[in-house]
């Protein structure tokens, strides 16, 4: 199939209620359209405000393949600007992060901008006298994201002028970010250190789907977590359980465990597994931390916060959050078969260092390019990427526990944990965004 740009009917036909056509993972034109439509109209995670604590602090990232910069302005507010000089288009900031001082200055012709993106000076401005410069695009300064929202320190941007409001887009799924931030006795998070950066030679959706795919761990991770389990079981019974064993073992829990964990879906493709409990539920207690939380929130509320143990929350399409272990994974699609996954460790401000050590350990064990669990997963994504070239069956089946109820309005809610309902929800959101207006223009 080809020629999707001007054919919304063809795009719609790729997504059935319980299956999707392989082109959604392999067709470069669809990837381009995803970046232009889905990723521009969605609220995309940019960064965390703790990464830009001081005026002039910035970080640069690509979202929907466009260079953007997130920076702390002179008024203390965080902004998201397009990283493109108004003059000839050079990226204004080349570094990944840093402090730009009081002004942004282009490296090519020295045009400067205030930290809100307004054009401040142009060298030898007399050269523009009587040129109607004030009417030019260049005079308007740096473009900014059409909309930006900061929620508990998480900075999201929407690039297109039209689209759902932040609150409508995420709705009650924001409770996972709340739970993550509430785990700090003072309600604040900080990004700790550099992200683990793992290049996946596979389509971005395989990663996003996998986060709430609970039928794979006991198979795909049998070699890693299963090996850890076997080695652990051969230890003398009185041996103290190391943290790494505590973190590996739940990956090879049985089907019943993952089914009873539960999955909850929301509109716009968001979801989380671990409605009832999760692979993070049985970590050893840290008494000092529990006491701090009780002092900060009172016993009842502290228990409610720590009693939540969500597995992965997908903020479709760009962010996945693990509140119970304080790590987040950010999805940066690069090409139809190339996706950068960046995994950040978060520090619960005010909490004992043992919490940060646990998060840092988990992030390394599971999300690093050197992770045996990561190797298991990426092998499977790549196997799909290559396997889909096979003709004969062009459909990817997403039928597990499908019911017609999901088509009805208000289908958002809880389902059994091993249902593929979260993936079906993602593709409903995908099809809606991919066929919205502009699709015929």
């Amino acid at each position, binding site marked *: 199939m080809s020629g999707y740009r001007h054919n919304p009917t063809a795009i719609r036909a790729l997504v059935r209620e319980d299956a999707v056509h392989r082109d959604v993972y392999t067709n470069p034109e669809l990837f381009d359209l995803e970046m232009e439509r889905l990723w521009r109209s969605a609220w995309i995670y940019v960064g965390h405000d703790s990464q830009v604590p001081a005026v002039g602090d910035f970080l640069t990232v690509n979202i929907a393949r466009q260079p953007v910069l997130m920076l702390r302005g002179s008024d203390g507010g965080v902004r998201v600007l397009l990283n493109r000089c108004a003059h000839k288009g050079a990226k204004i900031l080349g570094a990944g992060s840093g402090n730009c001082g009081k002004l942004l200055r282009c490296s090519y012709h020295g045009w400067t901008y205030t930290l809100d993106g307004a054009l401040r000076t142009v060298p030898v401005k007399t050269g523009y006298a009587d040129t109607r410069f004030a009417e030019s695009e260049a005079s308007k300064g740096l473009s900014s994201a059409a909309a930006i929202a900061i929620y508990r320190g998480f900075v999201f941007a929407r690039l297109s002028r039209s689209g759902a409001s932040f609150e409508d887009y995420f709705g009650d799924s924001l409770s996972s970010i709340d739970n993550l931030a509430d785990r700090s006795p003072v309600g604040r998070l900080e990004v700790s250190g550099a992200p683990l950066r793992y290049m996946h030679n596979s389509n971005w959706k395989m990663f996003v789907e996998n986060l709430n795919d609970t039928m794979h761990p006991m198979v795909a991770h049998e070699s890693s977590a299963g090996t850890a389990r076997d080695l652990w079981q051969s230890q003398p019974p009185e041996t103290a359980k190391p943290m790494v064993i505590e973190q590996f073992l739940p990956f090879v829990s049985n089907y019943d465990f993952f089914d009873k964990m539960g999955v909850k879906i929301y509109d716009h493709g968001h979801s989380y597994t671990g409605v009832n409990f999760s692979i993070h539920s049985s970590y050893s207690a840290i008494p000092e931390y529990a006491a701090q939380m009780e002092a900060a929130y009172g016993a009842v509320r502290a228990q409610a916060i720590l009693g939540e143990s969500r597995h992965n929350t997908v903020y479709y399409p760009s962010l996945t959050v693990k509140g119970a272990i304080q790590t987040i994974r950010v999805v940066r699609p690069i090409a139809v078969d190339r996706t950068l996954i960046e995994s950040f460790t978060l520090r619960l401000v005010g909490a004992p260092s043992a919490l940060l050590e646990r*998060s840092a350990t988990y992030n390394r064990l599971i999300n690093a390019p050197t992770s*045996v669990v990561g190797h298991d997963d990426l092998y499977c994504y790549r196997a799909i990427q290559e396997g889909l070239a096979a003709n004969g069956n062009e459909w990817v089946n997403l039928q597990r526990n499908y019911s017609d109820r999901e088509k009805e309005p208000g289908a958002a809610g809880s389902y059994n944990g091993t249902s593929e309902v979260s993936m079906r929800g993602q593709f409903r959101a995908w099809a809606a965004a991919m066929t919205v207006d502009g699709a015929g223009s």
Partner: protein
Amino acid sequence: MGRGDDGGRGRQLMGNTSEDGALIDFVYDEARLIDEKRFDEWYDLYADDCRYWMPLMRGQPPDAGHTSLFDEDKLLLKIRIERLRNPKSYSQAFPSWCQHILQMPRIERRDAHSGMTVLRTPFLYLEYQQDRQETYAGVAWHHLRQTNDRTFIVVKKIELLNCDAALPSLQLFP
């Protein structure tokens, strides 16, 4: 921040005694055991309190509050070795192979009191799997403890040149 682990004090060159030569050979042999997948022999080179560490950041402090690319104790090394042998390790359906190319190790410092010697070894590390070969470079620091007639690796710290890069799966041991 620099890439050395000597706190910027600079290193004192040692004479190349025959004892030094044995330690230098030890570092070469360690790499060879990995390249030849003689993992049981390799594992036995490591002390019970060992740390196989590849930081994520240049100048990264050694504490556990930072995440790393590798930060293995002896148990984690064992899990990796056994996983590589597990027939259900599908990511090894096409086995990975690696090749270390070491510059001559230099003895950086020696602490007679603790019996610890630190060697610095710039290296190239190639990892190959199914038509793809990745090239890495860096500096390895071996902290070796000599007890009786044996030498053990207490710390192997690997400063990867591109530690902050987006990396593909790295499945063996730099």
